[in-house]
């Protein structure tokens, strides 16, 4: 407490703030993110169908999207979603729910290129997340390669004692 102000965190969670998260928490967060992306795709599909219905109500049929196009769409949506989330707040919705935050090599917030590269890496090689269980530093393959970290951070705007510095610092 000394010098750090009053912590709004529950006592039992304070010791873990700033520690790299383990496999289970990150898997749950990834599953939530997957669900979010799925909902976004579904929403996009519904929006597309609605647009087609408005254009040609008589000849309207649900669009038949090819598998490759669906996968490509999912890939793009996932990459954009992850990149924007990590760029803005360092956390996706799944990370927000599970109290996680993605930070750069020195604990700083991700910059655009770093967030984009990491998003691409995660989308291409999601299995790399399982390396967290093996790594002694709780790092996934992406974290090991890009020197990033996913830490427990229950603070909505960064921990008061050690705020995450802005990009480039």
């Amino acid at each position, binding site marked *: 407490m000394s010098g750090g102000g*009053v912590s709004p*965190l*529950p006592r*039992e969670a304070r010791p873990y703030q700033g520690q790299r998260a*383990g496999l289970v*928490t990150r898997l749950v967060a990834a599953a939530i993110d997957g669900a979010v992306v799925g909902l976004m795709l579904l929403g996009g599909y519904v929006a597309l169908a609605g647009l087609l219905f408005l254009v040609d109500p008589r000849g309207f049929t649900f669009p038949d999207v090819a598998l490759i196009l669906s996968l490509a769409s999912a890939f793009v949506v996932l990459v954009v979603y992850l990149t924007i989330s990590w760029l803005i707040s360092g956390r996706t919705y799944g990370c927000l729910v599970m109290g996680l935050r993605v930070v750069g090599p020195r604990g700083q917030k991700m910059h655009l290129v770093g967030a984009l590269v990491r998003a691409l890496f995660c989308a291409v090689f999601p299995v790399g997340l399982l390396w967290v269980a093996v790594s*002694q530093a709780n790092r996934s393959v992406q974290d090991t390669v890009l020197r990033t970290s996913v*830490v427990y951070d229950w603070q909505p705007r960064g921990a008061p004692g050690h705020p995450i510095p802005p990009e480039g610092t």
Partner: protein
Amino acid sequence: MVPPRLQPAGLLELLGREGAERREPLREALSRRLDVLVPAVLSEVLGRARLTEMLLRYVDLDMVVAAVDLDAAAARLDVDEVVRRVDVDAVVDRVEVDSVVDRVDVDAVVRRVDVASVIERVDVDAVAGKLDLDGVLDRVDLTAVVLGRVDLDAVLDAVLDRIDLTSVVLERVDLDALVQAILARVDLVALAEEVIDAVDLPEIIRESTGSMASDTVRGARMQGIAADEAVGRAVDRLLLRRGRRTTQAPGVGASPERPEQTPIPAQTDRTS
């Protein structure tokens, strides 16, 4: 028939005249020899004899003293001359004051003293007027005297019993200034933080305002952390690793409390 020169009378007379002629030289010679011999013999005799003992044994000193006319002797004594001749300083130097004092029975002396009459004669006011009280006070360590001999607790209790401390404080203490001084010394922010931390105010706020959803999220997070640790330990055991994982992220700042000091509850009460 016998010539007169040879008659006994004449012969004795002759001898008497010769004796008279020789007696005087012999007496002088004897006197000279006695002058030499007697001091030597006397010195030897007196050296060997214990005169004091003999004197004490054989002489009745009381009778001798009684026979002496001391008054006449004292009258003849020129005391001033005696005193003038006495080297008082030398006498005082020879006196062992300590031994003299040891021999004095002070109690007996004091018993004989009529203190009341002494006090009556003393002009206490004059004595008090001559006292240098400041000098006396300078010599006395009053603090030590008070601390050693005064029952401060009893004094304090008596004083406190007699005065109304509350009214004294209210009348004579500038409470505003006192409060200002106290507030100036106290780090109120730190104090407030300590109090808030002690009562866990964030927890109270969470309990009063938190929703079921936030409780569920909190429980899910804590269970996630517990599951993370369990999986990590299991994998480490499988890989025959020893020691803890290094999970502190660089630049984020170490937590003041290490995780091993705070066990994770398997399930918080509020998640149910």
